[in-house]
């Protein structure tokens, strides 16, 4: 059975060109960077080229890019590093109830260590409350954190407006952005958006797993979070796979050489998916906004009167891979916290399915999926005591 993959938010297929770009670094160029020896200098020069290329995609400079072992590592290095180095300026953090778990678990960790955290609310479509943000700013606020494209609903937070609000404060409030869902899907210019720190994960955009990068604006001081020997980076100490970094570099190249074409294609596919579902399946609720304020690859939709794990499994048995916000499929048996925070009922969260598309998906796959989905929803509703239509 052919596999149709709509789980690119979880992880995405490494592009064949990425795998090819990695092989020489696994076979011949397996060295770590170093001085005065040819092997080390060659690798160092390659890494410098990669950094320059990556930096150019976000309007940054090469020396503002750190390679990391992934998005979560980048988030930890940024948040723990910034707060430990700047605690003397204040101990108040602002983020939101719908942020990515990396941000929320770090916020909770710092709350236990004496920091105060304001968790902003979000509206029905997943936009954080900017009035609340304005009121939350205090003289001791030192860090604002957000998830640029929400991992559940694809909602793109209005960073330009946020930048203006934060600028009204009479002191510096650093902005840390988790851009793991946003990078390579939305144009990001760190200067225009007022970003000081930003985490990116390669496997979300057809790069390899286990590698990512952190953008650190020049002048933003980070304390050392990971102690140890410096092999590749001064913040991500120890070894990082050079092959993985080279793979990420290739994935960046592929994403940005046809950036507009790629994102347009994905947007058209996801809009097609949404339109077909809404045309053919009654009683659905789109989670997240419509239009350009939504990440192009994300369609999150609740099917009323039925439960998402059952939908997800039936799709899986038909070769279609997608995700659900149902408690039955979650680790702690809780309904999706983002959807609950956006005012969805338990039932609506349980019945949600998240499709995250990539440039490798096709219209034919979507036609097949919607045909199957229509049958699955009809079948499960016929079994449901909640459905009397």
């Amino acid at each position, binding site marked *: 059975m052919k596999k149709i993959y709509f789980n690119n938010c979880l992880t995405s297929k490494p592009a064949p060109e990425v795998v090819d770009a990695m092989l020489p670094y696994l076979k011949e160029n397996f060295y770590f960077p170093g001085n005065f020896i040819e092997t080390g200098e060659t690798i160092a020069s390659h890494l410098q080229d990669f950094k320059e290329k990556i930096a150019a995609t976000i309007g940054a400079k090469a020396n503002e890019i750190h390679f990391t072992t992934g998005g979560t590592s980048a988030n930890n290095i940024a948040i723990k590093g910034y707060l430990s180095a700047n605690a003397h300026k204040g101990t108040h953090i602002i983020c939101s109830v719908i942020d990515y778990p990396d941000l929320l678990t770090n916020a909770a960790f710092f709350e236990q260590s004496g920091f105060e955290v304001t968790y902003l609310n979000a509206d029905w479509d997943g936009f954080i409350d900017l009035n609340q943000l304005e009121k939350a700013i205090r003289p001791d606020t030192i860090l604002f954190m957000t998830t640029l494209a929400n991992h559940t609903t694809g909602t793109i937070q209005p960073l330009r407006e946020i930048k203006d609000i934060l600028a009204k404060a009479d002191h510096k409030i650093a902005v840390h952005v988790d851009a793991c869902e946003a990078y390579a899907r939305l144009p990001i210019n760190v200067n225009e958006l007022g970003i000081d720190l930003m985490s990116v994960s390669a496997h979300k955009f057809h790069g390899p797993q286990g590698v990512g990068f952190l953008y650190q604006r020049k002048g933003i001081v980070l304390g050392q979070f990971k102690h140890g020997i410096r092999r590749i980076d001064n913040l991500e100490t120890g070894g990082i796979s050079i092959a993985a970094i080279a793979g990420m570099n290739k994935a960046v190249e592929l994403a940005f050489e046809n950036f507009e074409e790629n994102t347009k294609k994905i947007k058209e596919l996801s809009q097609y998916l949404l339109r077909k579902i809404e045309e053919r399946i009654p009683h659905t609720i789109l989670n997240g906004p419509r239009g350009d304020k939504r990440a192009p690859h994300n369609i999150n939709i609740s099917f009323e*009167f039925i439960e998402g*794990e*059952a939908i997800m*499994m039936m799709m899986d048995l038909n070769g279609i891979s997608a995700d659900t916000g*149902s408690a*039955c499929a979650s*680790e*702690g048996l809780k*309904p999706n916290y983002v959807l609950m925070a956006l005012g969805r009922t338990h039932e609506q969260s349980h019945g949600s399915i998240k499709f995250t598309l990539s440039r490798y998906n096709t219209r034919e796959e979507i036609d097949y999926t919607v045909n199957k989905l229509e049958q699955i929803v009809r079948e499960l509703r016929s079994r449901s*005591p909640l459905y009397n239509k």
Partner: protein
Amino acid sequence: MQYSQKVLDHFMHPHNVGKLENPDAEATEGSPACGDQVSIFMKVDENTHKIQDVKFLSYGCASNIATASIITDMAKGKTIEEAKKITWKEAAEELDGLPPVKMHCSVLAVDTLRKAIKDYEIKHGLAEEDKFSTDKIIEELKKVIYPNVGEDIVSLKMVKYVGFKDGTAIVDVEIPKFDKYRDNVAEEIREHLEKFKEIKDIKITM
């Protein structure tokens, strides 16, 4: 985590799905807010008290549908006395096992079946509504499954104290502070005890 082939078969092609017109007994347990709900409808022979037909509707995950399917298979043709004795462990075994985190689904299905039988017994003067006591609370807590191991919290000796005073049920449960299922267990206890009209307030200490 994996489901057995039998769970998948019953999930994809469940037996006894639907509603019975003019059933002799029926019951619904769970709620959309709890994440799962099962309704069971029965036709029972008045003379032999044998379950002639039984159907179910399920709002729930794969294991919820599969357990409702197997439990209705198991009950069909049995007398109500025999059907009453079916346990959630037997239902799970009949499905070649369920992942521990999914055991509560078989509890819900068995619970719904028992409630439907009780409905029949009350309608036919074979039983009375149960009197309320702390024993009822303990019986109900035996339906709260600790998802880490798939056993109930009473058998696991996690329940340290149960009390009832002036409409308040008091339950003390031993569970590690950082256990990922801590909130889930508290919520389950609440959902199970809320259905007693005698209980106005629930105090859970952990």
